[in-house]
């Protein structure tokens, strides 16, 4: 009887120590769900969802404060991926937050730029190069096309140019063929 009790007590202690140790050792940093949602979001950091970036939106979705259909750059496929991840019904994109547009990059008209640095401060990914009273330019490969630099420009010298299809980014098309007509 006593042996059994001691054994159970010993086991409880041992397992308790193991559990306690592993809880400390393998502690999950941050919310894995937020990271998973963030990985699906397109990282344009455009704020069209109403949150100041993709991570805050991901956090809001994880908390249940935001809906999954607020991200126009992610498009329908992004919304479906979120629905898949969260196990909810897909729903059409909320037009209040804007409509999906073809991917574009910002272009500064360098003849008009007055070097005010306002766009540099607005860019969420530091993709604009320049200094006060010096001409600014966009690093096209870093630009996410978020359009956040367009509004602050006092001389309206920034425009959004859709990315043209070129040999480098061309994709094979989905095969289309006509079926044989019968009767």
């Amino acid at each position, binding site marked *: 009887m006593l042996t059994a009790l001691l054994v159970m007590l010993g086991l409880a202690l041992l397992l308790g120590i193991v559990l306690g140790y592993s809880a400390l050792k393998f502690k999950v940093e941050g919310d894995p769900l937020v990271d998973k949602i963030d990985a699906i979001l397109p990282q344009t*950091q455009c704020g069209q969802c109403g949150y100041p970036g993709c*991570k805050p939106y991901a956090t809001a979705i994880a908390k249940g404060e935001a809906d999954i259909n607020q991200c126009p750059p992610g498009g329908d496929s992004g919304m479906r991926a979120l629905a898949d991840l969260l196990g909810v019904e897909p729903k059409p994109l909320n037009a209040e937050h804007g409509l999906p547009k073809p991917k574009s990059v910002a272009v500064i008209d360098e003849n008009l730029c007055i070097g005010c640095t306002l766009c540099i401060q607005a860019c969420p990914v530091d993709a604009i190069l320049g200094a006060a009273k010096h001409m600014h330019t966009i690093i096209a490969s870093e630009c996410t096309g978020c359009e956040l630099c367009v509004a602050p420009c006092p001389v309206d010298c920034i425009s959004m140019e859709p990315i043209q299809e070129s040999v480098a*980014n061309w994709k094979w098309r989905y095969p289309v063929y006509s079926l044989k007509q019968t009767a």
Partner: protein
Amino acid sequence: MISRLFKFSGGVHPPEHKLESTGQPIQVLPVSGTLVLPLRQHVGNLPKILVQPGDHVLKGQLLAEAVGAISAAVHAPTSGTIVSIEDQSIPHPSGLPDVSITLNPDGENRWMPLNPTDWRQRDRAEMISSLRVSGIVGMGGAAFPTQIKLRPGGGSGIKTLIINGAECEPYITCDDMLMRERADEIVRGIEIAHYLLGPEKCIVGIEDNKPEAERAMREACARSAVKIDVAVVPTLYPSGDARRLTALLTGIEVPSDKRSSDVGIQVFNVATMTAVYRYFSLGETVVSRIVTVTGNVARPGNFEVPLGTPMTALLEAAGGELPNTNGLIMGGPMMGFSLPSMQVPVIKATNCIIASAPRLFPAPPPVLPCIRCARCADACPVSLQPQELYWFAKSQNLDKAREYKLFDCIECGCCSYVCPSNIPLVQYYRFAKSEIIAQDKAKEAANLARERNEFRLERIEREKQERAAKHAQRAAGAKAESADADADAAKKAAIAAAMERAKAQKAEVQPKNTEDLSDAAKAEVAAIDVRRAEATAAEPEAANVVKEKQENG
């Protein structure tokens, strides 16, 4: 001698159509009209342009140099003047224009000064680095820069050097004709590759439908100081694929996630070996190539043409296209693609041009549903499950397609060839592949954007803290100043106190002139004092009256 041959699973026997274009020897075509040289003639980075419109260049002169590890240089195919550098139609399945250099020949066809060297005396590493400016790429059609594959011996670990003369695709005969006519050049190129890589074995693989080429190669190899075996492999499409040929000759299957060089094997096309020979022994850069022109033309054959020559000039050399020609195919009928126009130039990857016509390539019969007969799986030389890949690609289930090793597919077209339902399977795989590549690129861009955004937020936070720290520091400075002010105040107070004391002392001291006064003067002083006292007594009253008046009013 090769002791025995191995096998690979699958493969098909499409009609060969090779006899049409092997009837006449290789013709060397002169430069005709302007040449258009696309920068994108190889796998990898676009080269950097070194010339400007208006520049006069000599044949073989470097026009654009390789950028980064995987890239190839572009040279002038003849002497002449650079007319323009702009987007032009190029031979690419997209049909989209791309950056090209246009060269107006001066008719002299003058080489730049060539410096032929004896490669046996040269340092291997130096030879490899000089390959970067040679412009040599895989001439079999893949156009992979050769300098990557010819890393020097010792460290290379290459045990078997395989020279690919299989040329398994129907219609194409440029390697066949090259082996028949210029076997010695090929063998000299193989000697150089042998010198650079230091392999234990060297095998030339030729399909058994090219007996003349085999004989020529055997004779040339017998004359060589290096021991080179010639192996004849059975005609079976796609035995010319590098990995299939490796499997046939060595029995080694290169793992899907590795390069053949990782398992000690390197494979080169015969035409690449000629280019290597010409570069090291004659000093000539890649300025021309042999192209098979066949299909619906009057006199099919093989032509050595300067790069950049328009396809129309090739067709003309082949006697012109026959009636009913409805387009050009670059490459073979199995893996090639339709050219966007007849004006596009010959590039380093152009091994064959087929004028298509309904009599050769009738319109495909209607597509029927997949009946899961699995003939495609039997034909697949890579042992994939084409029918499964088809479902995944069709439903755009890209993750699953990747899981089923879509990227091991060599797009040989065997599955489409045997499909009884005429499903364009390879088109689905190409679509799925490019979709996956695009998604991966987007993901990479998103990761970069996330990283940059996080860095920016961190920087803003850090700047905020730095500013706060600076403010705190300034505030602390102000406090120190106020401590000084306290000290000043104390000093002032001390002075004030001293003055106060002095005043008190002064008050205590009686005025000297009040002593020893006469009585009359004393009486006068007393009277004055009384008057002053009266006046001071009356004044507050008057002030009070005024105050009351103000309050009432």
